[in-house]
């Protein structure tokens, strides 16, 4: 039996926005930095009787910026809806989210494996956090509402992802763009970025190959993954698990699974009911959001240069690789600083490509994004001249050492490998300072042979 399986993967990524205040109230948005539980709370985010939400304008603007960065269309008339479900960390018995009019829809992200369509990006509020602990020998569940009401965006893709490595590339790219826009720290360890993958397998054989594009009749949701590496491994493990089930002639169960990194397996968390009913309806407490042309224009105007365009431009102008360049910065404030530095270098006819290499490999000691450009130029120039002088000096010293120690040279030639260490020691003595010993050993052996 020679069956081939095509993984069909869609992703849902939640990201906490780093606005100063929460989504629907003025409370400080810093659940991770809070010194104590339940201190950044008020009637609104505690869901007290009579409290009303007022939407955070900045969070709306940032959501739209991300949408624009991902080539989305924007709903200029949008609204918030109530999504009802019961859970102790959900103070109001419903989450304020967006149902049929998300701020952004129909975007895309390019990966080296192909394009991934973004179905929608919507804005909602995070929930509180349950803490299970034992107090006076009694098992208790405590609730911390510091996180309740933190702005949360959800980015949903179409099921366009075909492999674990593509999923990883997608998630990484999304992370880079979010960091570049500087709208979230997106620290997965802190739960500021949460990855979920929906995975199913399509059986491909010669018969079905050209048939319709129907999706498999089940999907497994993979949750609680807190790094890009684990995302890739978890998806791989899940694909393998599903293959085995299908090979037995069965269909994998529709469910939510977690990932155990130690054992590198996925495990069942809960069966997903097919007909979850959140009883969505427009939140009557929040008037519909109309984004006026002037507001929309100002959001567009405040957008930094597109991340991909920026890297392409730099690649073209300075000859460094995109992957190298992307290591230099995260946020657009940083990229703007670098952009200024690079053009300053270029204007002075300095070797910008060399500078980029020095910076990436940390060959020069400068405070990126802090030092002024002139200082960086002088450090750069110094390092170039010292490295040139060193070269000459080293060559001279090696020649002298060889000349003064013919016996050691003979020994080395006849196969006594230790002899080179003696020559190294002599060279160092002549140089009188520390240098990279590897380079010197290389140079000595080159000179002798």
């Amino acid at each position, binding site marked *: 039996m020679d069956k081939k399986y095509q993984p069909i993967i869609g992703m849902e990524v939640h990201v906490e926005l780093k606005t100063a205040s929460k989504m629907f109230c003025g409370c400080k948005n810093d659940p991770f930095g809070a010194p104590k539980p339940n201190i950044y709370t008020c009637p609104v985010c505690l869901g007290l009787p009579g409290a009303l939400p*007022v*939407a955070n304008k900045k969070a709306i603007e940032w959501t739209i910026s991300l949408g624009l960065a991902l080539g989305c269309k924007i709903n200029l008339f949008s609204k918030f809806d109530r999504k009802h479900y*019961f859970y102790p960390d959900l*103070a109001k*018995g419903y989450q304020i989210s967006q149902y049929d009019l998300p701020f952004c829809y129909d975007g895309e992200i390019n990966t080296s494996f192909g394009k991934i369509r973004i179905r929608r990006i919507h804005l909602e509020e995070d929930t509180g956090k349950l803490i299970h602990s034992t107090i006076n020998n009694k098992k208790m569940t405590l609730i911390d509402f510091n996180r309740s009401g933190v702005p949360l965006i959800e980015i949903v893709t179409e099921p366009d992802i075909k492999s674990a490595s593509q999923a990883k590339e997608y998630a990484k790219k999304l992370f880079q763009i979010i960091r570049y826009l500087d709208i979230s720290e997106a620290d997965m360890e802190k739960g500021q970025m949460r990855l979920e993958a929906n995975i199913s397998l399509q059986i491909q054989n010669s018969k079905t190959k050209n048939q319709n594009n129907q999706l498999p009749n089940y999907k497994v949701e993979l949750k609680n993954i807190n790094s890009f590496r684990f995302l890739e491994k978890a998806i791989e493990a899940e694909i393998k698990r599903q293959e085995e089930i299908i090979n037995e002639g069965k269909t994998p169960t529709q469910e939510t699974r977690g990932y155990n990194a130690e054992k590198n397996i996925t495990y069942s968390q809960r069966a997903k009911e097919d007909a979850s009913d959140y*009883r*969505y309806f427009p939140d*009557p*407490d929040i*008037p519909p959001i109309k984004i006026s042309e002037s507001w929309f224009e100002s959001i567009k105007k405040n957008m930094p240069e597109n991340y991909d365009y920026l890297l392409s431009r730099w690649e073209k102008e300075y000859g460094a690789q995109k992957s190298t360049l992307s290591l230099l910065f995260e946020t657009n404030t940083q990229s703007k600083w670098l952009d200024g530095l690079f053009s300053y270098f270029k204007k002075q006819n300095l070797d910008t490509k060399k500078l980029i290499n020095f910076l990436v490999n940390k060959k020069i000691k400068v405070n990126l994004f802090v030092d002024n450009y002139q200082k960086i130029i002088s450090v750069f120039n110094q390092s170039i001249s010292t490295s040139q002088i060193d070269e000459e000096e080293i060559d001279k010293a090696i020649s002298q050492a060889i000349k003064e120690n013919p016996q050691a040279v003979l020994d080395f030639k006849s196969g006594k490998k230790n002899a080179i260490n003696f020559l190294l020691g002599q060279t160092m003595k002549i140089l009188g300072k520390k240098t990279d010993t590897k380079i010197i050993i290389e140079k000595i052996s080159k000179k002798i042979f």
Partner: protein
Amino acid sequence: MKNKLTLKKAIELIDKKEVSLKEIYDDILKVYKEKNKELNIYLSFDENSFEKAKNEKNKPLRGLPIAIKDNFLTIGFPTTASSNVLRGYMSHYESTVTKKIKEAGGILIGKTNMDAWAHGSSTETSDFGPTKNPRNPKYLPGGSSGGSAASIASNMAIASLGTETAGSIRQPASWCGVVGLKPTYGRVSRYGVIAMGSSLDCPGPITKTVEDSAIILNFIAGKDEYDGTTSNVPVLDYTKNLKKGIKNFKIGICYIDHPDISSTIVAKKTLEAGKVLENLGAKVELISTSKTLEKNKILSHEYAIGVYTVVQRGEVSSNLARYDGIRYGNNRSCFGSEAKNRIILGTYTLSKGYADKYYIYAQKVRHLYVKNFKDLFSKYDVLISPASPSFALPSGASQGNPMFGELQDMLVEPSALAGICGISVPMYKDEETNLYLGLNIMSDYFQEEKILQTAWAYEQKTNWNEWKNI
């Protein structure tokens, strides 16, 4: 008896030093002690509130005692919405409206009974026992703001605050023979008011006279940064043009041609009220009721019952979700049967596959009322109708009738659904039962000034208001 003073008069006499605040508080306390047990108006009452009032003499409300419906979150009093679920609940924040009243020098003297969660029009569904109509204790005060209306009718407060979702201010005002103003949706902040039907809820004054309602509205109206549904439309001084008269006002009389009403005393008295307004210089016309949306006709109130029921029950089921038994001390079995009915119906109408058929559809019909009123107010300054289809009903009338409230409120439901403003003023008293009928005066969005002017002119011209000459 200084407790009978209107807000306006009390301020005046305090300033002239003809009446002391102490006298007013003493008289109110006296009637409270005499009658509250029987009438069950206050759920909580601060007998020492004069101590607080003393220091407020220089503020606009002069430290005068104001009764507050028990669905306003207040510091210092329990806030229960008359439900066992919140029995004993002490809020640690204050509603915007009560905060504004306090800042203006008003003293919250106590919290008044209501239908539990404001679900009802009788104040019989309170988990803390029914309130009786002070005009005749064998009868209902109406509701859900029955306690506040009764506090005025019994002179147990100088002024009071209620809330209306559809009729909950105007219907009890009508039944208790007092004045009740339901402002435009978004004119007064809902922050800190326990939510019932969030797209409809509206706090407003229940007072002895029209002028008192205008005074209270001055203090509570306005944009609130804590309530995104409040409006930026500038707040007027509603007392400024109050007495300007209604000469050349175009007034339409609504609903009295409907077969259910046309032959009743309610229709007759509304027509008489129309005559009074005409004599005051207004141009008064009858508007015919139509079952379809037609120009210059008013859309039948009959659909409003269905629309209102679906919209409000849906919102109720969502708003009560937070009382999940984890917080607030009392579990979900404390919900009364009316709340349970509403939660079940609302949950059903919002469910997948049903929301389009019910909630969304209802919102579409709701929009027809908006259009209808928009059309009518392009022609008329104000519209009048009976506030309620009947006099107060006897105690017990609401029991076993799940649609009791909707039937009582049907004449004010279209305006509540549209979100326009309305005021109920006494328009007749039956000498035998001592019970009242109310005239409902409505106008376009944020035209509170017009309904107050009309109501004031009417109040002055007629003898139904017992306080106006005190």
